């Protein structure tokens, strides 16, 4: 995807100064109601179709997940889990993909100016023409989402159909979902809609039903309604309390400018030492003493 003129930018990777952000934008969100999903994968197909991507024909290893993991072509993937929850068999299906974090670890880690942007509406987008293919975003993401293409060595992931959203359309997956398990709107509306769904689920006996909008990454612009929100891990490893790794925070935090200052200081100390002490020159006496020592080596 390339930068969209109609969407202002909140944050831009490897950029210290502010990006164009004069215009006001409403925060949007995609709400995935896991309890309504029937696992038909229409969203997965719509994603390939809208984005003109093709996935390789894979092999069946006895599970429904197809392909087996997210790839540079598969930006969203239905993950299936068969599990006993409190003595009852459940078939959990989760639509995996970029969460569009408010505090995106991928963007924080990226060294290439403008290769990752966060629009004011909350969408985190990879601007592939600026991507240098280093794979830092993979290390930054707490959800293990970005994939580096073997074809062009660029990073790819769900764009939340920023190109559609920019012109007032809903993402392709939300549009195509036959059960309306995927809805799209302002983040506020989606949270209100989720509340209704959660109340309904609770009424039906799912006491720990809840919204997945993890505060550890500042909230996300893709949210889930989960029947078992107290145990998100059972949904194919959805992290319970995702955070940007402390190693990444340390690597990309104040340490960087401090390290640069350290390097500058070392050079400056050297220069000031020279200015105050002058060069350490060999004196005539040194040469004489050396010559003498060499004539009488026994000394």
């Amino acid at each position, binding site marked *: 995807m390339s930068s969209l003129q109609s969407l202002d930018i909140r944050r831009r990777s490897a950029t210290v100064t502010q990006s164009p952000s004069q215009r006001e934008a409403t925060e949007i969100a995609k709400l995935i109601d896991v309890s309504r999903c029937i696992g038909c994968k229409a969203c997965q197909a719509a994603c390939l179709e809208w984005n003109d991507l093709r996935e390789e024909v894979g092999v069946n290893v006895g599970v429904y997940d197809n392909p087996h993991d997210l790839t540079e072509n598969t930006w969203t993937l239905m993950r299936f889990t068969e599990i006993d929850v409190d003595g009852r068999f459940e078939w959990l299906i989760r639509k995996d993909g970029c969460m569009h974090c408010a505090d995106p670890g991928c963007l924080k880690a990226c060294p290439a100016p403008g290769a990752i942007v966060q629009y004011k509406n909350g969408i985190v987008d990879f601007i592939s023409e600026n991507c*240098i*293919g280093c794979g*830092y975003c*993979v290390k930054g993401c707490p959800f293990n989402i970005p994939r580096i293409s073997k074809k062009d060595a660029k990073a790819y992931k769900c764009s939340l159909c920023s190109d559609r959203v920019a012109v007032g359309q809903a993402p392709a997956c939300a549009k195509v979902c036959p059960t309306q398990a995927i809805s799209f709107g302002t983040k506020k509306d989606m949270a209100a809609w989720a509340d209704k769904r959660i109340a309904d689920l609770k009424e039906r006996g799912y006491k720990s039903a809840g919204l997945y909008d993890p505060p550890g990454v500042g909230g996300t612009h893709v949210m889930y309604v989960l029947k078992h929100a107290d145990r998100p891990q059972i949904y194919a490893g959805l992290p319970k309390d995702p955070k940007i790794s402390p190693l990444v925070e340390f690597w990309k935090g104040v340490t960087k400018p401090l390290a640069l200052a350290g390097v500058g200081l070392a050079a400056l100390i050297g220069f000031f030492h*020279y200015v105050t002490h002058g060069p350490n020159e060999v004196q005539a006496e040194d040469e004489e003493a050396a010559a003498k020592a060499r004539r009488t080596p026994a000394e």
Partner: protein
Amino acid sequence: MADKNNILDRYTAGARLNHWINAILMICLVLSGMALFHPSLFFLTDLFGGGTMARIVHPWIGVLAMLSFLGLFIRFWRFNLWTRDDSAWMRNVKHVVSGDEAKVPEAGKYNAGQKLVFWLMSILTILLLTSGLAMWDSQFGEYTTIDQKRLAVVVHAGAAVALLIVVITHIYAAIWIRGTIRGMTRGSVTGGWAWRHHRKWLREEVGKTK
């Protein structure tokens, strides 16, 4: 080896070539690496043909630099073994910094400061090599987990900055102590330089000619 004009041989042509190949590769590594270290230095990628090119060439230059450093290590490690005198030298390093070397033990081929630079470079080089390989996703991506990669980038960036500071110290010392650079460019130093900075080495060399 000594000669009549009070000149001593310090480095063979092979050692000098090895040193300067290493220096050139290191400068390329520092420039291409630091380009990705901080946004304000990203412009350095232009020296390598853009961001993607810098990303591609950096690790390959790294492998070459490691090989050339190995050459230097094999040549010099014997002369860099730490002695009791070196500890005494280090304790009195402030006299050296203020230009008064008479107050510290006579140095052999390398003084304690140079030995420290040598060992720091060796250790940091190994750290850079191992962490560098772990973050080289285009070649070895599948051999490490994401958590290992996260550790690797922190180690790599930290070791790179530490190495850069060591290199700055190394370069400044060579500039400040006049007569040093010719040792690495022409291979020889004057007797007076050796007397002033490496007297024990001078005595050893003179002893050999007997």
